[in-house]
């Protein structure tokens, strides 16, 4: 096979899959057939481009082929039987005769992502559908992202697509009344994909770059299609400002480097710059939603005048606003850390202990790790050691575990090894 063609097809698959599938889905009215049409278009490209060369606009070429294939299937389907379950909510003009020159297909990815992230679908199904249908990940790749087996993931995807058809989950961008709430579920899916890539829940590497990059692609797509939504600008800013630190988060040996100790010359300048611009834009309109506030916190870290010493008072006040719009135990935990940095380790420890009873935090290693840090700063070394041990038991990421073990082993030898002090 011609390596140039193979690379062009792989590149188009990465950048154009969602758009091609979305265009086909508008015609076929069901996602399975649309997937088939998109797959066949890519298969045809491999053969055809070898003979004719890679077209100037591979995406338009592939969309044309996928749409043609979709129309063939519709005609055959109409002949065979009346109708199949269709995606609800397509406009009257969405049939095979819908206008649309081959140069200017409407971008239907927004419809597709709102369908994939519909609140009537289980949260894990939303993420799986988005990675499969928008990003073009194979079922095996989606299964790998969630650490489940391929048959389990295949069954989950099939069940979700059946629900879309049976319950008539529409192929439509929600109206202005519904949009803020529905957009929030979409943004949560993209953020979850990014978070999973930024710090892999388990395994030998800290990051899963493939997932982080897919999340960045999705956030950029939403920004392109919803340019006036502050929540979208906020999510893209948050992802950029967090992702910009990716090279500085581990040292040459793959060991974790804390934010305060990171080499800022290794931060991605252009991502920081782009992220800061977007934060400013996302904070132009009140009330602030979740992602603009989280991005503002990331921006405060990124713009610290002295490396490692950001304006913790400002970060704490941003967390106070964040917890008002998003009262989650995880936010409370991060806020408690901000209390400690702004007001001293004793205040931080008190804030952490105040939320320690939250069931959602029971198995969460960051709580134990944060307690350990403040106990250490208060010279309560034996308690710190126990807290590091607890965090080590709860973390499944090897890079994080090495870091925690190293911090624990830096503590001075126990002064009462047989009977550790406990409050």
């Amino acid at each position, binding site marked *: 096979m011609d390596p140039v063609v193979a690379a062009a097809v792989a590149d188009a698959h990465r950048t154009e899959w969602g758009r091609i599938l979305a265009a086909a889905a508008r015609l076929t009215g069901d996602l399975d057939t649309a997937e088939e049409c998109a797959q066949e278009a890519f298969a045809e490209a491999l053969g055809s481009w070898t003979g004719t060369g890679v077209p100037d606009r591979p995406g338009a070429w592939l969309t044309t082929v996928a749409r043609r294939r979709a129309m063939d299937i519709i005609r055959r389907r109409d002949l065979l039987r009346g109708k199949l379950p269709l995606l*609800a909510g397509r406009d009257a003009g969405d049939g095979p005769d819908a206008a649309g020159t081959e140069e200017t297909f409407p971008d239907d990815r927004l419809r597709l992502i709102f369908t994939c992230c519909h609140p009537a679908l289980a949260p894990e199904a939303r993420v799986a559908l988005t990675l499969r249908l928008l990003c073009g990940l194979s079922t095996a790749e989606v299964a790998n992202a969630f650490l489940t087996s391929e048959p389990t993931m295949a069954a989950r995807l099939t069940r979700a697509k059946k629900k879309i058809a049976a319950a008539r989950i529409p192929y439509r961008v929600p109206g202005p009344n519904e949009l803020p709430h529905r957009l929030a579920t979409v943004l949560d899916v993209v953020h979850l994909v990014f978070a999973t890539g930024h710090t892999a829940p388990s395994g030998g590497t800290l990051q899963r770059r493939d997932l982080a990059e897919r999340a960045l692609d999705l956030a950029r797509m939403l920004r392109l299609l919803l340019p006036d939504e502050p929540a979208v600008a906020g999510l893209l800013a948050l992802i950029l400002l967090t992702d910009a630190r990716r090279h500085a988060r581990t040292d040459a040996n793959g060991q974790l480097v804390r934010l305060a100790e990171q080499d800022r010359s290794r931060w991605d300048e252009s991502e920081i710059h782009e992220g800061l611009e977007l934060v400013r834009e996302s904070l132009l309109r009140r009330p602030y939603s979740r992602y603009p506030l989280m991005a503002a916190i990331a921006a405060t870290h990124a713009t610290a005048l002295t490396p490692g010493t950001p304006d913790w008072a400002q970060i704490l006040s941003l967390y106070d606003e964040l917890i008002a719009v998003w009262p989650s135990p995880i936010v409370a935990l991060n806020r408690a850390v901000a209390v400690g940095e702004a007001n001293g380790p004793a205040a931080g420890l008190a804030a952490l202990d105040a939320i320690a009873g939250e069931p959602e935090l029971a198995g969460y290693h960051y709580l134990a790790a944060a307690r350990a840090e403040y106990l250490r700063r208060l010279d309560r070394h034996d308690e710190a050691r126990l807290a590091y041990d607890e965090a080590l038991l709860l973390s499944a990421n090897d890079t994080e575990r090495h870091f925690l073990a190293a911090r624990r082993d830096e503590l001075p030898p126990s002064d009462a090894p047989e009977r550790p002090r406990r409050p």
Partner: protein
Amino acid sequence: MAEYMVFIWSDEQAVERSDPGTMDRTMAAHREFVSRHASALRGGNRLHPSGASTSIRHTPDGGVAISDGAFSETKEVIGGFYLIEAADIDEALSIAADVPAPFGGVELRPVLPTS
């Protein structure tokens, strides 16, 4: 268009404990709901308490096992239903969200088309 079943789930003990005023307000809210969404409603009624329920399960040998009571093992049981017609799930959800259900919630289930 499609038909959806909107189940009203209730904590029966809370229903029994409730004062007549709450009951009257809930019934009035239902009358209000019915008149507001008359064009979408295809049916609906309050159900007998779950003590009147009988469940049927098919057994592996091809027979049926009949048992007293509802399927649910949680505190909530189905206390009523509406049958509605809507273009898609978003329209159905917006109607279902209006169903008064102070003792639990509602469950929306697409009705399998008969044709």
